[in-house]
């Protein structure tokens, strides 16, 4: 099994003006998904990211606030997932509950640097 990163962008929940009941239903979908992944022994963990960030860049590095992504582009958090292959990981990502409200998942394999023979 290999480790993968699911990087979540969006959705802009603030634009949806969900009622309390809808917010809860939306949240419950995530827990159902996590439960499914856990049952298959695929979910390793996950965490949200703070909205505030800094960019440090340039040949004479400068620290600036940002990036100020729009809601649907905002990187909100990540999962670490176990899967046999990139293909399987992508299949697992199909369970992400927020596609219909403009959310997206980027799936990347975490590279293990092999010991040279």
């Amino acid at each position, binding site marked *: 099994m290999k480790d993968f990163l699911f990087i979540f962008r969006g959705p802009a929940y603030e634009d949806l003006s969900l*009622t*309390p009941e809808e917010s809860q239903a939306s949240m419950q979908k995530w827990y159902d998904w996590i439960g499914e992944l856990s049952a298959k022994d695929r979910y*390793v963990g996950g965490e*949200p990211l703070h909205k505030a960030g800094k960019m440090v860049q340039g040949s004479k590095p400068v620290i600036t606030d940002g990036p100020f992504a729009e809601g649907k582009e905002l990187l909100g958090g990540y999962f670490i997932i176990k899967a046999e292959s990139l293909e399987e990981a992508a299949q697992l990502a199909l369970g992400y509950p927020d596609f219909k409200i403009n959310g997206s998942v980027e799936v990347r394999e975490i590279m293990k640097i092999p010991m040279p023979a």
Partner: protein
Amino acid sequence: MSTGTEQPQQLVDHLFRHEAGKMIAVLTRVFGITNLELVEDTVQETFLKALQVWRYGQLPDNPSAWLMRVARNRTIDLIRRQQKLANLSDELSKQLQSSTENAVDQFFLDTEIADSQLRMIFACCHPSLNPEDQVALTLKTVSGFGVQEIARALLSTESAIQKRLYRAREFIRSETILFEIPVGHELSVRLEVVYTVLYLLFNEGYNSLKADELIRHDLCAEAMRLCKLLTEHRLGAEPSTFALLSLMCFQASRFGSRIGEDNTIILLQKQDRNKWDRELIRLGYYYLNRSSTGDNLSVYHIESAIAAEHCLAPDFGSTNWKALLQLYDCLLERKPTPVVRLNRSIIVAQLHGVHAAIDLILDIPGIKALLEQHYIYPAVLGDLYGRAGNCNEGRRLLHMAWSLTSSLAEKKLLQEKLEALS
């Protein structure tokens, strides 16, 4: 980081809705009832934060406390911003801030939360608001329902509900009604209005056959939750409050057995009494017991005793009709409405025959108009005529009832009765 070895996380049913009611009540203490919009926005932001943070797998140990804390911090933040606009020295700002935090924290204490919720119930049930606005406002601000959910529950449209809420809020703003628990005589007057609103809410869920079962169930459960909330506060724990709660428990115990497969109505005499919810019946008796203090016998006491009488009978045949008639006589004295007369006549039919019952119904003041306006009157009267052997009159009335209701389940039941008469 949360790990995959945990059990799948599950939020308590309606947690957000219930927390919304609490937060709205507390924040109204802070910002004032004229600022309901700011209050609701702050609550909305709190849920947004939860949604953005909890979904990756970490549910806080105490979600409810977490939400309250976020709302509290956001509140302090908003106040701080307003104080900044006031051009004060650093020294005074600091002092003001710490006293603000202390004052706000007081509002977030459990006992104060309960108090605020009661104040909110009383504000929504202000006697100058009309009943439909009271119900909509209660569902929105006390129960945390969304506009669309209220529309579905009350079989109305979103724009109609928006209008009601707007009207109610405008009234609250322009009349600057107090966000307080009334005292003395005023309290008992207001409690009566609260009972009416809660019972209306309950019946909206219990009787409407047009809304889907889930939302109807929600409404009944919500009315019971609010009534229970009242019983838990020293100023709301009146005998009548317990009586109303016990009535709701008895009624709710039959919730599932009244509707059969494919949405057909199952009448009391045909209901499978094993399906009645024993736990709710037990609670009904418990609260009825607790209601029997003081010397005020409310209509809820009597209606609950009537419901209890039905629950006591192991089958329809062994119903104690005599006791029921006495209770209905008692009810009629306090609530001489056509519906009570109609229900009483059904009991009379069991004891003294259908002819006596028909006479009673024909004697209801304004019966001519009622027969033409509300399906229940021709439905009951038509059924009685059928049982009395007057099939023509029976059919005529059942036809009338059929065209007066838009509920498919009711139409189906009437259709069956019509067929039995031909």
